[in-house]
């Protein structure tokens, strides 16, 4: 049996199934990942924390949320409320993801409590249990797109493209997210979650889930009491009508790229974007760089990119170009789940752990 056959047949994405056992068996679970060389002094400078950029961005973020929320309420019932809720939704339903992410890493601010406060607020907005997702994201960084180990694989093969497209309007995923919160609040963690959340942390997951559910129930009761959708336009609703940018940027992080490689250059995508998207996304368009060096704060990622880009695949020049690359790969994966967009490393790059990269070579020969 070739390594190709063993890796790709069949794909079981659960965290307790055959793929997990196989990934552990061949050493993917504890593999050493590729890192570009950056001199220690330079890396220390890149990793330095600072409160300034994140305080500025958070004041703008929350300030605009309040202003556009007030505008939306003021003009509620007229077409004039639409632009206000367009911006409000984007700030609530999309920017929350990058704030959740960066504060969760503890790299947004230098001051720990500031990270914690923004993390909790953003977790609520993005409808994620702050405890379970903190641990799932740690696992995602340990085992990025390793089947059976990574709980955050966006596209499982063969991909469900229509369902992915529905992400842009938050349906039906908002209901999955609410159902998950309700399960955490009243039933508990499932077996997959227990594989990455230590017992000592599980009670926190229950507490936060109950708090989030209580706020949503209060909002719904208020909407019923007022006979108005307005409370839901302000709380919870933006996760439907404002989440499109979060998914637009999030799906291309790893979509259509290789599974089961221990080199972020092959399973993650760096995409050049317009400045508004980069602000909403807090520079997570430099996704290879972030995965390779998660200690580097969002505001230093452009500098990190300049320092190591000679060792990375060419970035996708635009969001559109990334979608073309990803969509082609996904369409082929519907018929051939072993297909993926193969990232070409520059001639100057140092390949690493060839035994894993041979998975690609074998696939190419099929």
């Amino acid at each position: 049996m070739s390594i190709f056959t063993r890796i790709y047949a069949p794909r079981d994405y659960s965290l307790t199934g055959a793929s997990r056992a196989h990934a552990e068996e061949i050493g993917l679970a504890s593999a050493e990942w590729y890192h570009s060389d950056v001199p220690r002094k330079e890396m220390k400078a890149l990793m330095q924390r600072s409160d300034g950029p994140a305080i500025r961005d958070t004041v703008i973020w929350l300030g605009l949320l309040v202003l556009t929320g007030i505008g939306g309420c003021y003009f509620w019932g007229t077409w004039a409320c639409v632009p206000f809720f367009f911006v409000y939704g984007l700030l609530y339903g999309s920017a929350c993801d990058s704030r959740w992410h960066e504060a969760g890493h503890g790299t947004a601010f230098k001051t720990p409590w500031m990270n914690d406060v923004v993390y909790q607020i953003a977790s609520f907005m993005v409808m994620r249990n702050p405890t379970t997702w903190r641990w799932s994201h740690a696992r995602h960084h340990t085992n990025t797109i390793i089947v059976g180990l990574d709980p955050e694989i966006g596209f499982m093969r063969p991909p469900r493209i229509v369902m992915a497209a529905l992400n842009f309007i938050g349906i039906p995923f908002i209901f999955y997210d609410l159902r998950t919160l309700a399960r955490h609040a009243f039933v508990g963690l499932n077996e997959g979650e227990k594989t990455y959340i230590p017992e000592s942390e599980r009670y926190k997951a229950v507490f936060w889930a109950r708090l989030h559910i209580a706020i949503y129930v209060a909002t719904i009761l208020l909407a019923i009491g007022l006979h108005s959708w307005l409370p839901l336009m302000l709380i919870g609703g933006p996760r439907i009508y404002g989440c499109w940018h979060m998914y637009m940027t999030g799906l291309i992080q790893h979509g259509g790229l290789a599974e089961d490689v221990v080199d972020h250059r092959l399973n993650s995508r760096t995409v050049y974007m317009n400045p508004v998207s980069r602000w909403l996304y807090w520079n997570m368009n430099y996704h290879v760089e972030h995965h390779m060096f998660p200690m580097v704060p969002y505001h230093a990622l452009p500098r990190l990119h300049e320092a190591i880009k000679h060792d990375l695949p060419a970035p996708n020049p635009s969001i559109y170009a990334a979608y073309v690359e990803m969509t082609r790969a996904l369409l082929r994966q519907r018929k051939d789940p072993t297909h993926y967009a193969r990232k070409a490393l520059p001639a100057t790059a140092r390949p690493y752990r060839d035994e894993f990269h041979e998975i690609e070579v074998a696939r190419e020969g099929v």
Partner: protein
Amino acid sequence: MAWIDACGVDDIDAEDLIRFDHGGATYAIYHAPDGTFHATDGLCTHEQVHLCNGLVDGDTIECPKHNGRFNYRTGAALRAPVCIDLKRHPVRVVGDRVEIELG
């Protein structure tokens, strides 16, 4: 227990750390901002990643893999995903050398 020569005092920048391997084990030696030296086990208690590529900030060391934090003076785990404290080791400076007590 014995005092083992680990490095020179100038081998570690202020507010930084280095890796020191001895007897099949790995350690982290820190140069605190106040000029004192400290030592802990070299691997993070979360997923056994070398701390030497992490970031020293005041009294804390941040793990390079998932940003878990420890106080390297006390070994205390400060931030998830680290939950288990780091083992400390005594350190002394003799002349311009840093020694770590291991047993």
